[in-house]
């Protein structure tokens, strides 16, 4: 995995540099536009300050920003024991030093993402729709995929990419708005002096147009190869590729669209949240590889190791490999390495023996909902006929009727 990590670090630096350049240009253009000819240098200085603040913000607050944009809430073990256990299991399988914090998003569209500065303080967020749709094996597959993003340090890159893209879009939009207001004023003050403000205006407009294209470039940067790699590592954690395969299928078939996702945060999710079911076809600009291809690769794996994924990937895509050689020589390519070292191939854990049934789908759905009802201050009323009523805090009427037995429950 080290090759991939080094590549990520190079890409992170490149991203920060190009964002700084764009910001500098934006600062120069805005400075000249608003402060006259000599405004260029202070404009660039201002942009550099903004860049520094942004980068520091991304480094120290980026994960929190991502989580709050997505509307994620932290959960503890007593809230959702099964989700918590699954995350703990995958932490062990990935050999991470510390278990990521667990977050839940109240959204019916099934999806998940991981974020954080480094493996030691990462977070995994899943939607309530995901918890309601998937069974335990599938959930484990999704969490394993996210855990792979954390261990492969993809989250660091996605963090920078997301925050920078968001900030640039905001700045460009702000500049555009300022141009309509302030630009007009300065022109009238100089009564029509041709001091190049026209060129500056054109340049600024060009920069406004560039911003969304840069967001597109970030889509590219968070390359599709990384998703394949996370699938491969995820499968090697659970040793059960079918779990992730079937989860990907279910998630891609779900009709709902995720509410809290923007083009800046989309690359973080396990499945692109901005595309609707039925239009999942990948094109050159897609952030995520086509789902059915990911599923097919996972399904034709002979075993649960990285080498198995590599072989399956070559077969399905008829192309070159996806996993760096160093990773294949290293850890879980067990059989080959053992033969080289002249040892009998050790039996690396088969899918562990599960000792009992998980709560039913209905039960886990109620667990998730209960968490959000508690958080949102819903009042619980148990009706004698066996139903349970939950009353929102802003409920207007003084009584609520049980539809089953017709009892009116006094709420005052």
């Amino acid at each position: 995995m080290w090759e991939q990590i080094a590549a990520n670090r190079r890409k992170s630096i490149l991203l920060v540099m190009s964002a700084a350049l764009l910001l500098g240009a934006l600062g120069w253009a805005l400075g000249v536009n608003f402060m006259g000819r000599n405004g260029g240098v202070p404009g660039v200085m201002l942009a550099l300050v903004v860049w520094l603040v942004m980068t520091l913000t991304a480094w120290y607050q980026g994960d929190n920003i991502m989580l709050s944009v997505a509307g994620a809430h932290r959960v503890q073990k007593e809230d959702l024991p099964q989700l918590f256990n699954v995350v703990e299991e995958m932490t062990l399988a990935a050999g991470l030093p510390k278990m990521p914090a667990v977050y839940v998003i109240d959204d019916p569209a099934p999806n998940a993402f991981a974020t954080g500065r480094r493996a030691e303080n990462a977070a995994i967020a899943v939607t309530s729709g995901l918890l309601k749709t998937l069974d335990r094996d599938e959930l484990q597959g999704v969490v394993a995929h996210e855990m792979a993003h954390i261990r492969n340090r993809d989250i660091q890159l996605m963090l920078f990419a997301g925050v920078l893209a968001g900030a640039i879009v905001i700045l460009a939009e702000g500049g555009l708005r300022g141009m309509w207001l302030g630009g007009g004023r300065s022109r009238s003050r100089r009564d029509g002096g041709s001091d190049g403000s026209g060129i500056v205006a054109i340049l600024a407009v060009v920069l406004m147009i560039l911003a969304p294209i840069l967001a597109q470039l970030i889509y590219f940067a968070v390359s599709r190869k990384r998703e394949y790699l996370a699938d491969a590592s995820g499968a090697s954690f659970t040793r059960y590729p079918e779990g992730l395969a079937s989860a990907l299928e279910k998630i891609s078939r779900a009709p709902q669209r995720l509410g809290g996702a923007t083009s800046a945060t989309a690359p973080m999710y396990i499945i692109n949240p901005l595309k609707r079911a039925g239009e999942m076809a990948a094109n050159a600009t897609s952030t995520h590889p086509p789902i059915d291809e990911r599923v097919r690769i996972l399904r034709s794996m002979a075993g649960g190791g990285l080498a198995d994924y590599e072989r399956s990937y070559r077969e399905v895509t008829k192309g070159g490999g996806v996993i760096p050689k160093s990773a294949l020589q290293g850890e879980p390519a067990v059989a080959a390495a053992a033969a080289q070292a002249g040892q009998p191939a050790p039996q690396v854990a088969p899918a562990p023996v599960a000792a009992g049934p998980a709560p039913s789908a209905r039960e886990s759905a109620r667990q998730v909902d209960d968490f959000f009802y508690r958080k949102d201050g819903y009042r619980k009323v148990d009706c004698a006929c066996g139903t349970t009523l939950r009353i929102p805090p802003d409920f207007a009427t003084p009584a609520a009727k049980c539809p089953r037995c017709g009892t009116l429950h006094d709420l005052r």
Partner: protein
Amino acid sequence: MAALFLLPLVLAVVAVMWGVGIYNGLVAARNRVKEAWAQVDVQLKRRFDLIPNLIETVKGYMQHERGTLEAVTQARAAVAGAGTQAQRVEAEAGLTSALGRLFAVSEAYPDLKASTNFASLQEELASTENKIGFARQFYNETVMNMNNRVQMFPGNIIAGMFHFAPETFFEVKDEVQREAPKVSFN
């Protein structure tokens, strides 16, 4: 002239630095093995601690399953009494299969299955069982990495000089694995 004397010196320094690099790699690999084993151990202890609670909960419902319950208690005692690592590994495997039988038998007791206490214990134990498996899988990966360094050229030279020995895999015997009933989560 000076270059002729310097060349062997430079070569020696390079060789020593290269050796130090390999040595440090070996130490790091050994520490990773230790850390990974500590994780396995934490989960094994957790299971060990959960069992009295489980027996207490189950006892009232499963009057007719004395033998199954006793097998679990005995397997747990065997874990406590294990001296060497090899004995421990075997005893833990025995405990896994005894627990598996207990949960398989519990399917026949609807009252027990309806008890919320049992349901949460079952999720806890099932998950601990998974955690043991995953921690063991990672431990075996670190052992593989360590052993490759110790046994492959050129690491084996340094390893021999400083007495780095290959580590033992935590293997699960095939028969035990087959005995343990696979109870699905679905």
